[in-house]
């Protein structure tokens, strides 16, 4: 109710408090961004546990390097950059992403998936699983920059302007990455569906 509740503080104030050693302030930031962070990690990993680990790791890195964070920059942008870099690094380290476990886990998610909800027959379900696998492969085959720009736009809904900030790149470059990614995916997916 009052502005003395940390949950209502702006990012900047929370970062300042966390920099002064108030861990609880950082925990508020975690609560504020954990779902977004998890989702972006999930878009890259397509694995629930991996996404959790990866997004948590991003928070921990942000926490340990909080002193080097420039308050003039937005926490969100700074944090997302750490996270996206971790996601890229994760893929490089793992080589292959556990696409197979993805469908299983999505189906275990409690039927909230619109796709799972719309498809009931086993045939359709198998087909949707196959499509999902092929989509995963198509995404994985994209060059890292194209995939990143695509996921940030298509999955996360970030503006070109924000993607450019996160990827530390020019907006024109992001548009080219996005265009190439979409053109490739359209080509590959049109053969499937």
């Amino acid at each position, binding site marked *: 109710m009052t502005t003395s509740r940390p949950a209502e503080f702006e990012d900047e104030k929370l970062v300042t408090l966390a920099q002064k050693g108030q861990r609880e302030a950082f925990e508020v930031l975690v609560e504020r961004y954990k779902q977004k962070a998890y989702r972006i990690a999930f878009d890259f990993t397509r694995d629930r546990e991996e996404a959790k680990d990866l997004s948590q790791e991003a928070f921990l890195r942000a926490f340990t390097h909080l002193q080097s964070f420039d308050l003039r920059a937005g926490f969100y942008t700074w944090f997302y950059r750490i996270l996206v870099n971790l996601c890229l690094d994760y893929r490089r380290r793992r080589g292959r992403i556990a696409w197979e476990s993805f469908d299983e886990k999505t189906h275990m998610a409690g039927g909230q*998936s619109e796709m799972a909800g719309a498809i009931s027959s086993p045939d359709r379900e198998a087909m949707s699983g196959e499509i999902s696998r092929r989509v995963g492969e198509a995404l994985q085959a994209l060059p890292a920059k194209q995939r990143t720009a695509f996921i940030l736009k298509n*999955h996360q809904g970030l503006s070109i302007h924000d993607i450019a900030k996160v990827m*530390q790149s020019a907006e024109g*470059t992001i548009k080219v990455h996005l265009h190439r990614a979409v053109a490739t995916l359209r080509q590959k997916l*049109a053969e499937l569906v």
Partner: protein
Amino acid sequence: MAQDNDLIRRACKEFEQDLVLYYYGERGREESKELENHLEGCGSCRQFLADLRRLLPLTVKPDDPPQPFWENYSKEMQERLAAIAQRGRWWRDLASLFRPWPVPALATALVLILALTLTFGKRIWRSQDLPPDEEAVLEILPMAENLDFFKAMDLLDSMDLLEDTGGPGNGSV
């Protein structure tokens, strides 16, 4: 590939990127109008846009973890953050142990050690098998922190390396 081209017509080259941006709502009113005018008379571009509307949503697979997942997430984070904070305190306590030691003596010893290292190289340094004295510990602590820091920065910079846009980059992530 020829088969692909037969099946999937490309949009007009000069409009394709605009169509992608239009699909994502990244075109202004004027640009959109211009594009819509073109779409009225161009089947290939209409097909391209229709394909995006049909296919791109398929690339997003929703995942909706249950509430216990998020509760567990927060709990784990609190524990991991507490562990880091605890570790930080431990390092500070350790460093404080050496604080009362005479600073000039430490500085002199440090300079001597550095001079020896630079003069005789790593092998001699190692063969002497010096006991881990306080100077070394004090030197290693910030170094270890820096290593960790640079490791993280490498990671952050990996994006820069991937990007080929040039520009000086101010280094402040």
